[in-house]
């Protein structure tokens, strides 16, 4: 971690880029945080924690297509909100995909698929977002969500299997 400190955000150009990211996204991050947490102090903590993640992962920024960056950042702030809710025990992670088996059987097109994944239980969404979008390791996800690495791996596999099953269905339109 230390060597990271010594190399990122060192140049004036990096700092300008960081300031520009802040200017473009902080309002959205704040709105998401206050909507999820309903508490100013917690929302501020979530936003600050999210910016810590942005700084830590700053080297990835240049590799993220600009159209994806807002969602990458939203994902980070949402995860920080979930972390706070979990610590406060204001959210219980439900490990139940059974309700989705029924819905998954009736996903005719891509829009319905997106809608289905929008409504995945948070525990699956968070694991998948951290793993697929943010590139976190199972160990990092395990630490952040307070679940075992096995549970992380299981949820990621089930999420992928759900997607695979839908895509394999005859007549599905991607």
């Amino acid at each position, binding site marked *: *971690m*230390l060597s990271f*400190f*010594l190399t*990122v*955000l*060192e140049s004036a150009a990096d*700092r300008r880029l*960081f*300031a520009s990211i*802040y200017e473009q996204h*902080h309002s*959205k991050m*704040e*709105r*998401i*945080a*206050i*909507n999820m947490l*309903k508490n*100013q*102090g917690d*929302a*501020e903590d979530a*936003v*600050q924690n999210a*910016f*810590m993640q942005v*700084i*830590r992962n*700053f080297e990835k920024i240049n590799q993220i297509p600009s159209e*994806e960056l*807002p*969602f990458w950042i*939203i*994902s980070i702030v949402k995860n920080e909100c979930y972390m706070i809710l979990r*610590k406060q025990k204001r959210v219980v992670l439900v490990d139940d995909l059974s309700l989705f088996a029924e819905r998954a059987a009736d996903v005719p097109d891509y829009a319905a*698929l*997106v*809608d289905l*994944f*929008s409504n995945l239980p948070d525990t699956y*969404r968070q694991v*998948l*977002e951290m793993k*697929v*979008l943010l590139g976190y390791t199972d160990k990092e996800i395990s630490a952040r969500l307070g679940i075992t690495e096995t549970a992380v791996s299981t949820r990621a596999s089930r*999420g*992928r299997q759900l*997607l*695979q099953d839908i*895509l*394999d269905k005859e007549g599905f339109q*991607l």
Partner: protein
Amino acid sequence: MTEQELDRIMHRVLLDSMKAEAEQAGEDQGPSFEPTARHKRQMRAMLEDPRRWLRRRERPLWKRAAQRAAVILLMCILAFGGVMAFSPAARAGVIRWVMERYGNRIDFVYSGEQNREALPEYGIAELPEGYVETQRYASPGSALVVYEDQSGGAINLVYDYMSEGAMASYTLNEDDVFDITVHGMNGLFFQTRISGNNNSLTWIDESQNIQFSVDGNFDMEQLLALAESVSLCKTPK
């Protein structure tokens, strides 16, 4: 379908579901975000020097869970209380920091002019056996020195020049907090209750306008000994 193709589709689906959710969030009329003065200060400090801000917030202390509220206010300023009560000029000249407590967080907020010279080089003179200096990083306002041994143990010495726009934040979780003195200078010792985490110690040298902190996997007595051996290695030219 290959694994890579599946991952690519998953990536796209997750992004699109987030996009839909973000659009929905934009339409929701929830509570509004009204930033506190503390948050604004944090954001200013972050924009001024993101690395320094992150480093300050990322000490092992940040990562500990649950709360312990036994915080004792550092009283260095009181030593000057008589003078400051009567002289606003003296007060402006002397006070370089205030300590603020918000919930489980302690902020040391600095004031005063920026340091225009390089910081002096400090180091821990009496290191535990096997420890050697492995890294040293310095900017005009801040320095970090790392000592490591062969077994992976590490001691971090951090010191910051106290000036306007900078601050040091500590999130207290399951830490017991004790007031201590280092060569007569007041400070705090943060003792974690979480096995494997580092304890930390911070103190303020008002004569130099510098806040020091040392952390490592050591008890209070050992960290105090390390702190008391901190001395000047090199003065700026």
